[in-house]
């Protein structure tokens, strides 16, 4: 097991109280697994990623622990976490285009970053060049300023930079959202290539676009309003989802080949609850057509088949009514 998250609960501290952004998340990412993390805006997917990288105020670790390759991560100790950051656990940020210092050349940025981790730039240079070839960037970019590169090129430069020290876990946060479809495809395939070449052991890909995940992810974790809803292999999530939210979400996606005139899709009525004072129990309750009394309690995230986890009382069938 590469990554094991247990009972992770993270709140944001505000003047009006805690925003309960991530509630009792328990899941694992296996070696070599590409896990997609999907959900609507505000469902806690970026909070989950940020707490694995840099958990600083206003974020507050309420409970839970995270193990990477069996080692317990000191999540709430920002100083000690820097030993793991970039070397063991790395991130491609959402706005990779803005992640580069505009006053430094790309090569200089990389050299400084490596120096801070005690790695010699010259020894890693041949490998760096090999990886630039892999993402179809010319070696000249090392001598260029970020402003001289296009958005897609900067994105690829940051991708190479993020995996330079072969981290165990790479988190890609919405990296394809701002790109054109053709670049999007190339970037997604490069990420899969990173895993296949073992630059990274496992990957968490965060996006709101489930169709991208269908193309590249091994498994998908669906979140709703800070709670985990369902995790299963990609095919199961797309073809045979069990959680009512996943079902409605998948059914509402327009597909090439579906016309308004022939088949009218429908959205999910209502909107997610505010997380400042979320309702007790299952947070999807108010929008769920199948909700019953039991949903006033938080449903457990249980494995119903091998590798298929669902948090819904309906899965308990008759037992739940008893």
């Amino acid at each position, binding site marked *: 097991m590469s990554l094991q998250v247990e009972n992770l609960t993270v709140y944001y501290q505000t003047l009006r109280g805690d925003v309960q952004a991530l509630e009792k998340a328990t899941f694992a990412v296996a070696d070599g697994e590409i896990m997609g993390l999907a959900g*609507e*805006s505000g469902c806690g997917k970026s909070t989950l990623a940020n707490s694995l990288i840099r958990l600083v105020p206003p974020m507050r670790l309420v409970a839970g622990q995270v193990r990477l390759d069996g080692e317990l991560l000191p999540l709430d100790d920002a100083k000690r976490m820097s030993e793991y950051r970039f070397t063991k656990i790395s991130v491609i940020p959402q706005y990779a285009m803005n992640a580069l210092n505009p006053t430094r050349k790309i090569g200089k940025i990389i050299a400084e970053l490596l120096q801070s981790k005690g790695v010699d730039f010259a020894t890693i240079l041949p490998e760096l060049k090999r990886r630039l070839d892999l993402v*179809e960037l010319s070696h000249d970019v090392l001598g260029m300023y970020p402003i001289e590169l*296009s958005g*897609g090129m900067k994105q690829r430069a940051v991708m190479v930079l993020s995996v330079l020290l072969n981290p165990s876990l790479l988190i890609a946060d919405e990296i394809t959202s701002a790109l*054109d*479809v*053709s*670049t*999007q*495809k*190339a970037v*997604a*395939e490069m990420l899969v290539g990173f895993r296949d070449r073992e630059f990274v052991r496992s990957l968490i890909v965060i996006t*709101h*676009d*489930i*169709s*991208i995940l*269908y*193309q590249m992810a091994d498994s998908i974790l669906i979140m709703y309003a800070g709670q985990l809803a369902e995790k299963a292999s990609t095919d199961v999530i*797309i073809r045979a989802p069990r959680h009512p939210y996943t079902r*409605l*979400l*998948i059914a*509402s*996606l*327009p*597909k*090439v*080949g*579906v*016309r*308004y005139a022939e088949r*009218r*899709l*429908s*959205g*999910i009525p209502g*909107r997610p609850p505010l997380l400042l004072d979320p309702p007790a129990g299952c947070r999807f309750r108010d929008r769920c057509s199948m909700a019953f009394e039991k949903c006033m309690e938080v449903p457990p995230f249980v494995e119903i088949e091998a590798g298929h986890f669902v948090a819904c009382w309906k899965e308990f069938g008759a037992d739940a009514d008893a």
Partner: protein
Amino acid sequence: MLTLDRVSKVYRVGTFGGRALVAVSDVSFDVRDGEVMSLIGESGSGKSTIGRMILRLIPATSGRIVFNDVDISTLKGSALKEYYRRVQGVFQDPFSSYNPIFKADRTFRILRDEFFPDTPAAEWQDRMESTLRAVGLNPGQVLGKFPHQLSGGQLQRFLIARALLLDVQFLVADEIISMLDASTRVDVLNLLADLKSRGLSILFITHDLSLGYYISERAVILYRGCIMEMGATERIFGTPLHPYTQMLIASAPRLDKKWEEVEIELRGEQLENVAGCVYYNRCPQTMRDAACRTQKPTLVAVESEHWVACRRYARE
């Protein structure tokens, strides 16, 4: 209803405006009554520029945009105001269309002061409420709220309602879905499709092929300001002829099929002005020849309701 006749837009760029950037070049198409036309293209394809020219937010460099037999560049004063009664736009980011320090329904009040100063308050209130209901909002829930108290989907519907209050005949919808969450996206899309049955024509600008396919009867595929392919939606998606359209359709992520093996040329993204086909640099070797580099292809009809701008089809 609306016709674009060889419309071009050239921006002056560079420190002293020394270089010319052709954003839209010789684009001609028409939108019929009660029809949804999709304008599909990647970033930098000029799709939003076309929308802005139709709304007269920017002038066209050359060519004519004709709305109900009138060239819109000649409109002035009350005629222009009359034009805005008929033609309205809704844009990508609903939050930036509102002033955050005023309540969201201020946009309706401005509309009334500007266009309907003679309408009695009670009648205006009735019209406002019925229009809000028509776009699927509950007036009691949304009136008197500040923009941050409403969701993106609600604000976007608010803007559509605002356009409907003026008896619009033509709506420019510029990426109005892309900022919305998956669960509310489809509802706004369905709303647009329902409006079409009321005789409204919509220019639906998008980069998302599946959305364009879902809603429109006809589509235009743009690349760097030029029309690559145009025609009935099912013809374009069923038998894409232009190499660019084929690449787009193959690389769009889908839920029913895994990605096909298509070569994506990342290096050919240089933006210099070429004499021949704008897609030449990215076109696969097997599909292009030397003449593509020097000769600009023209749009030719390959079958009824299907035009393509590629020399491979012009030869036959």
